[in-house]
């Protein structure tokens, strides 16, 4: 399900399945993108932040066009206890790899992987950040 911001429009409430993973896409080329995500974060129920939220930063390939500092985004990820992924959508290889990563995360969040919960997975990812 794609949305431009939160909250989601109420008219489609009844058609929506259970939400297992929320991916916030931040375009590193526009400050507006970060602002939009920050505003939308306030509308997310706290229970999602136990491993069911992830930040996906796009456009990192174009170094000259960066408008947002990666520090700011990493800080955002830390304060919301959620992992941050970086990718470049214009490169097919990276696009496919990122999609596979997200799919794996989704499988875990939806409970399809026995023995691994969303919370345990996210704490695993967080520990590796500090190494």
């Amino acid at each position, binding site marked *: *399900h*794609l*949305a*431009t*911001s939160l909250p989601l*429009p109420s008219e489609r409430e009844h058609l929506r399945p259970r939400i297992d993973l929320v991916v916030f896409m931040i375009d590193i080329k526009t400050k*507006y993108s970060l602002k939009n995500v920050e505003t939308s974060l306030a509308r997310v129920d706290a229970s999602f932040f136990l491993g069911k939220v992830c930040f996906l930063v796009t456009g990192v390939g174009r170094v000259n066009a960066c408008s947002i500092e990666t520090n700011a985004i990493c800080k955002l990820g830390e304060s919301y206890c959620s992992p941050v992924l970086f990718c470049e959508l214009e490169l097919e290889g990276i696009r496919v790899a990122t999609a596979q990563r997200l799919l794996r995360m989704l499988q875990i969040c939806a409970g399809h992987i026995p023995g691994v919960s969303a919370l345990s997975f996210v704490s695993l990812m967080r520990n590796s950040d500090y190494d």
Partner: protein
Amino acid sequence: MDETVAEFIRRTVLKIPRDEIKMMLQKWGFLSEVQLQTVNFHQIKDNISQEVVQLCEENSADIKQAAALDIIYNHSYQNKRMWSVYQMKKSGEELEYFDITDFKKKFKRRLQSALKNVTITFKEYEENAIWIRVAWGTPYKKPNQYKPSYVVYHSQTPYVFISASVLKSNMPLLCQALIVASNYHEIREMELRSHSLNSLKDIVFKRYSQNFPTYTTKPLQEVNVEPENADIRIVHENRSEKERIHRLNQEVFGSGPQPKLEFAQYRLETMFKSDPKLDVLDKKEPFRCLVKFSSPHLLESLKSLAPAGMADAPLSPLLTCIPHKARNYFKIREKKGLFPESFVSP
């Protein structure tokens, strides 16, 4: 052949991209096919232009022919120049038959009586377009062929498109000659400028796709914004909003291509409104500010702002009125009265 004419022809040929030189010389028609066959158009441009000048020497070219070549080049590359639009007004409702010979005669006579040293060249193109090239001199100097003014006049319309040379002091004379020659009463400059001559014509002749309000009794079909081959597994949560934006955009911009403008300029002479406590210029004097929007294709980029999520729809009427009002230079002043909102001056 005059040295200056030779040099002018040489420089004009050098401006033309190599692949197009032969075609343009053919359009010019001054050199015969036989002569053109003798030129090697695959060598470097310097050599091509030298050979062309040689041939022109054989045919004794004068400034008239050289100017004709210059018009042909500028007609092909009209978008390299900056064009302004002028509108002429008639005093009465007289419907006069337009006589091109009469026009040319009157125009030449008016200019030459005021300034002896001018080179005037005419060429007619499709859609009743008359191209006029004027090279300006002074009472003591011969005309400067490298800084001519160009005028495009469509005889069935009151509009003139002028690409002035840097020598702006000749504008009043040029305008005067135009109204005398075309039997108009007055001429005024519109606040409309662009590099794309065709787009300027589209705007003033109203040839771009405008959207006319249609009143239908049955509700309009839901517009399908996404392409047909979109993955059905993707659900767009904000579909109705996207459709609303698309519909509004259609209403404002129409569905066809937009005329090509490179910028819009707004000169603000409004009061700066701030918290009175801050004591920053609050309503004491106008805050002079110039806002300029630039783009390779301004109107198309404005059209894509809302669908791209960069701006809210509907866009400010100050932006969307550009083609309808046929202007891209605006002065915004404070509206005097009960409601101090800004208003656009004519």
